[in-house]
């Protein structure tokens, strides 16, 4: 049992680290990072991962080693000690510093993404002039663009279902709303998630760095159809975005005529 137990315990750090090291090869890792702050979040994840991995390996290997070494058959008594004040000080102070470093490293990125002060003030889209209002409801996503006058809630607003089209490499600010229950707007490639809260209008910003069409996932349980509440965020060039707006306007005001 002694050998089995120690090997089982030793397998945890070995296979654990191996799994993380080879995860990318199996595609069990981050999807590509396609927003300006996505690499920052990945970096912070890795930063924590390396600190955690160090502690994980040291403690798990020590555990396996102690179980192997001290479960051997012996006729003498164990070491009679009630602890060590010095050791307690060391293993309180060092992790405390490490944890505070982790905590303070995180703050800047979070402030940039979620704080009012982090929102873009230059460019076409700001909190005062959002690109669109995104409405979540059971179980679809709707996008309402402000139309020609640039003001939401007027007669020339344009609406699109399931699809949210934005220009590439531009700061996008949109308003997130929910018609019924709580939903959550999540695009894995952008590393961005924000709950849509009924009764609230929540501003969200991002800057997509690569053209393409991405899954928009509902990330908060919203009922039986939660699993299929998917949408698309389509990132296009600025010209294509303008063309899309014109096309949407033509469809919206065509009264059904082709």
């Amino acid at each position, binding site marked *: *049992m*002694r050998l089995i137990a120690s090997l089982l315990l030793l397998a945890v750090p070995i*296979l*654990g680290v191996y*799994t993380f090291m080879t995860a990318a090869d*199996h*595609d*069990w*890792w*981050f999807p590509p990072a396609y927003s300006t702050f996505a690499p920052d*979040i990945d970096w912070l*994840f890795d930063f924590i*991962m390396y600190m*955690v991995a160090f*502690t*994980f390996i040291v*403690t798990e290997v020590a*555990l396996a080693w*102690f*179980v192997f070494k*001290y479960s051997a058959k*012996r006729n*003498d*008594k*164990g*070491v*009679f000690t*009630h*602890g060590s004040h010095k*050791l*307690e000080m060391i293993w*309180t102070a060092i*992790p405390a510093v490490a*944890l*505070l470093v982790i*905590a303070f490293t*995180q703050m800047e990125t*979070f402030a940039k*993404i*979620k*704080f009012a002060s982090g929102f873009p003030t230059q460019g076409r889209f700001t909190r005062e002039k959002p690109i669109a209002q995104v409405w979540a*409801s*059971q179980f679809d996503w709707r996008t309402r663009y402000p139309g020609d006058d640039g003001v939401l809630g007027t007669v020339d607003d344009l609406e699109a279902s399931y699809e949210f089209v934005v220009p590439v490499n531009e700061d996008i600010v949109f308003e997130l709303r929910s018609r*019924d*229950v709580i939903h*959550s707007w999540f695009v894995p490639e952008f*590393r*961005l*998630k924000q*709950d849509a*809260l009924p*009764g609230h209008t929540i501003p969200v910003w991002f800057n997509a760095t690569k053209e393409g069409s*991405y*899954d928009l*996932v509902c990330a908060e*349980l919203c*009922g*039986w159809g939660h*699993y299929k509440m*998917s949408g698309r965020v389509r990132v296009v060039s600025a010209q294509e975005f303008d063309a899309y707006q014109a096309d949407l306007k033509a469809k919206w005001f065509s009264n059904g005529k082709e």
Partner: protein
Amino acid sequence: MNPVSTPAAPVVTHPSTGLQPGEGAPGTMREHHDHHELGFLSKYVFSVDHKIIGLQFLFSGLVFLVLGGLMAMAIRYQLAWPWKPMPGLSWMFPATGGAITPEFYTMLFTMHGTIMIFFVIIPLLTGAFGNFLIPLMIGAPDMAFPKLNMFGYWAMWPAFVLILMGFFVEGGHAAGGWTSYPPLSTIESAAPGSLSGQTYWLMSLTWVGVSSMMGAVNYVTTIVKMRAPGMTMMRMPLSVWGLLIAAFLQLFALPVLTAASIMQLLDRVIDTGFFTPTNLIVNNLTPDSFAHGMPAAAAGGQPLLWQHLFWFYSHPAVYILVVPAMGFTSDILAVHARKPIFGYKPMVYSMAAIAGLGFIVWGHHMFTSGMNPALGMSFMVATIMIALPSAIKVFNWLGTLWGGRIRLNTPMLFAIGFVSMFIIGGLSGIWMAATPVDIYIHDTYIVVAHFHYVVFAGSMFAIFSAIYHWYPKMFGRVMNETLGKIHFVGTFIFTNCTFYMMHQLGVAGLMRRTADPYAYDVYAHLQPLNEFITLSAFCMFVWQIFFVVNFFHSLFWGMRVGRNPWQANSLEWDAPSPPGHGNFDAPLLVHRGPYEYSSPEVAEDYLPQTRAV
């Protein structure tokens, strides 16, 4: 020191029975002049004996564990093979031929979480072991309020009945997640489970709260007032400390959950609108047609208010789920490593610190909820700092094993398994606490991996360990070692196979609570990994047969043992196995702490708390 020369112990009298320690046990004075046979009903059903009440909690908790486990298997089946009929189960779901429907899936994970937390782990840790161990470990004849203790268990029965009835109401049971976020949970047109299943859910949880409250009052009073002479607070086993701290958590946090669930109940039944915002349109129904035809247009409520109230209880509840488990592990490691616990006081203080910090971290469940993001910063710092007392505990457990004479029996293996896997669960928590990282990983499978490592691989392993360890005290027999070791090896392997790989799913961004994630392009490639996890989970579930067989077989045919089969120090091993009514058959005097193993003072490698030297 000569036992005769010790100062006379102050007489401790039981407040309600008038018994003194030692009275009432078989073969003692009291039995001679107050001989009475208890009938089956008063002995096993309407018992006021803390040991029987503990066993009642143990058995009902294990029954619900099977139910919660079966639900987990159904969830895993759906995630590996979505919408495929479950083999052999078409009789249960005739409409779909045995396949899981989306609304059934939402109900499954809601009730899996609810049952495992409120009907398995909390009752097993605080109900079963709290009741059984506290009086025995502090040298008391029973709880301070034995009748209240009985009511505490009986308050669970309305909860049992209501939670089971909910499965049979129209629309099925609650399906808003175990977190029950309004408006999904409060508006009837929002989900089938919100028709009336949610009402049963709320009523049931309120009863669980009543039960926990009675238990907590009892535990605190008993520990503060009824310790045997010489048993100072700093001589108590860490199990008792863990249970005391968990009881304080319940005392301060539960009233908030009870208030919140009554508010949600009122929202549902008389449209008070505490959590319902103005102007909702749910399922294309106008506000007027909500619930009972009462206008909800001006409800004026706040869905976030529920989240704050719910997590103000449910985050401390997470520590109710783990702090007693830490206590049991500390005791079991010391006994079977034949060594004093390393750093007793740091262990006590770190448990208290975990509990104290536990009250100011609830907002880390709400980083992406729309809560003021500035609050996220302070919640993040507090949450990350919880890793500090947790790390101190791990280091002290390692220190306890260092230089020991480890006996690798089943309780010890499970306790070591707890340490190994608690490290994983504790460390992965740091990712979740970090606000920017959490924007991405919030509600992904990495969270699922994290809390299963803490609550299943952690608390459940500690419960297994505690069952194997205290079984001789409960039933006077030991469980079979060979079966126990087989149980450990398989459970350890399959638990890691199941939950470790969920980290990978989470890093890939897979969302929890999604019935068929492969409909999304970004998740389609994750199905093979989910199949592996499902197969591991099935193996783990089936493997528990070794435990079930061992448990019941040993009940009747296990090897009989005496009072102290593990050669342990704490007071419960001074009582007969199983202890009679009143627990101890001789007056107790406590001379020292419970961890004097391998002491040079005596020839043996243990030195019971009651032995004078």
